[in-house]
């Protein structure tokens, strides 16, 4: 009898754990660039620290070909969720792709224009005739650059915009092959550490460009809201960790991503840059949330400068339902 009682008691105690184990949902997240880039530290950190698992998710990371491509693949349900920047959805949604942004990872744009100091670019208009690198023509950084150029009276035929891929962004700047790039904080750090001085031109001085965002298709939002909510919650938790303790974040990130082994100090420096330049919001509770007015401004800017041809209702571009 005691044996049977103990067995029943043990089963009863194990039931919640068994239920959780059964409830783990496999999902795919599509990065716009290689997953080991420091731009995706919060994602890797959430994975490493078990935040996704705690939300009942088994996340597999895959790599797409730029933010716009990622949004398109997510919209076509080829991945559960994906990443790009906040304004990406307006580029593909205008062509009928049913995708919207569900979380925004920071207050300021992830991209800015960085020119080699030696080139002597004093304003964005000085980019005329220069070689400017972007990850790819399917990436949101390219569209942001087109917007910046248009605002300065330039078209893409006035300079050489080259799709050089993520690896070459730093290499070709250091070697002097390109004059400027649409940079992220980690690329800027790598280039400067290699001894190449840079001049920066923030693009939010031109239009209210945005930080990284998480995308989901309308269908995924309708059919798997728990999954989307769990992912957003875990990711934003990791972003808050980064803001609060960049040193610990960098340490765990390096432990999770073997490509950066032994680079704790460098990653901490880069993460601190991300925190100060991109992630931090005011107030902190605004982290993750979209501002419809800001999106409307960006869409109007893109439309006026013929970066996109049609506007869609701003409410179709995002939802804050999964944040907080």
């Amino acid at each position, binding site marked *: 009898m005691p044996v049977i009682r103990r067995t029943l008691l043990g089963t009863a105690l194990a039931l919640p754990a068994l239920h959780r184990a059964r409830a783990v949902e496999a999902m795919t997240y599509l990065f716009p660039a290689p997953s080991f880039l420091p731009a995706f530290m919060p994602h890797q950190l959430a994975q490493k620290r078990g935040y996704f698992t705690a939300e009942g998710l088994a996340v597999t990371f895959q790599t797409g*070909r*730029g933010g*716009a*491509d990622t*949004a*398109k693949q997510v*919209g*076509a349900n080829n991945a559960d969720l994906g990443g790009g920047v906040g304004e990406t959805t307006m*580029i*593909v949604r*205008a*062509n*009928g*792709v*049913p995708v919207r942004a569900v979380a925004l990872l920071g207050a300021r744009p992830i991209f800015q224009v960085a020119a080699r100091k030696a080139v002597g670019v004093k304003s964005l208009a000085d980019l005329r005739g220069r*070689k400017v690198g972007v990850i*790819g*023509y*399917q*990436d949101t950084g*390219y*569209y942001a650059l087109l917007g910046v150029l248009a605002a300065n009276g330039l078209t*893409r*035929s006035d300079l*050489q*915009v*080259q*799709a*050089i891929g993520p690896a070459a962004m730093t290499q070709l700047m250091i070697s002097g*092959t390109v004059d400027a790039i649409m940079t992220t904080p980690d690329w800027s750090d790598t280039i400067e550490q290699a001894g190449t001085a840079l001049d920066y031109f923030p693009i939010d001085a031109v239009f209210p460009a945005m930080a990284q965002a998480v995308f989901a298709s309308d269908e995924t939002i309708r059919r798997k809201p728990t999954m989307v909510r769990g992912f957003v919650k875990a990711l934003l938790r990791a972003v808050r960790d980064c803001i609060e303790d960049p040193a610990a974040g960098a340490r765990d990130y390096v432990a999770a991503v073997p490509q950066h082994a032994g680079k704790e100090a460098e990653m901490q420096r880069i993460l601190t840059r991300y925190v100060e330049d991109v992630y931090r919001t005011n107030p902190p509770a605004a982290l993750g949330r979209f501002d419809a007015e800001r999106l409307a401004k960006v869409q109007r800017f893109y439309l006026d400068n*013929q970066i*996109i*041809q049609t506007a869609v209702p701003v409410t179709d571009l995002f939802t804050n339902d999964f944040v907080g």
Partner: protein
Amino acid sequence: MTSLAEAAVATPRPWLRNLALPAASLVFAALVLVAWEFVPPALGVPKYIVPRVSDLLLEMARMGRQENLLAHVVSTGSMAVLGFALGALFGAVCGYLLGLSPLWERVLSPYILALQIAPKVAFAPLFIMWFGYNAWPKLIVTVLVVFFPILVNVLQAMHTADRDQVNLARAYSMSPAQVFWKVLFPSSMPSLLAGLRIGATLAVIGITVGELLGGEVGLGYLITFGEGQANTAMVFNAIFLLTIIGIAMYGAVAWVEARVLHYIPRVEH
């Protein structure tokens, strides 16, 4: 009288017979376009998967206005023609030289075979690394893909040249150069021109691969750009224009072939 009238009715007039085929082709094309316009929306297929014909036309007009379409077409067309010309020249010259020198052919044939088997388009990223983001990578890819079919065709023609004619020429004390220009070269023309026809279509593939991987001009770039923003109509239009360029190049080679090989009887279909 009756039999003559019946014969006239039974045998269509030549002009009618000449028009029937193009008319049937046009009717077929019209049916396909009508189906393309109405069937995908009826089946609920979104336009970023299959755009309608009207979407393609509207997008083509927009590309003309806003995307500097003419410059992209001219860039792709001119680079395809240049790549084709260089590939054809190198292929033909190497084919003739190897055909004239059996020793060198035996020495080089394993490497030629290996290069022919290797997927030439896979070299494109290497060319971009070596030569940078300019016109050279796509030009070299095009030259490579055009080079081999022409080389192989010319080499084959040199092997199968009529030995009796060669021996006859030698019996008339012709120099090796005379034997080549009077016998071998003319006899290789059908194979050379067949190779050129294949090369003309491959040139468009080569240039497109080069433009897809790097560079900011050309129809390959428009495919990448359109594909990135789910603008499938732009992708379709760029593919359509690439096809037109390919057909134009093939047609030009076929026109040259018809004039150069006018002495060869052909079967009329």
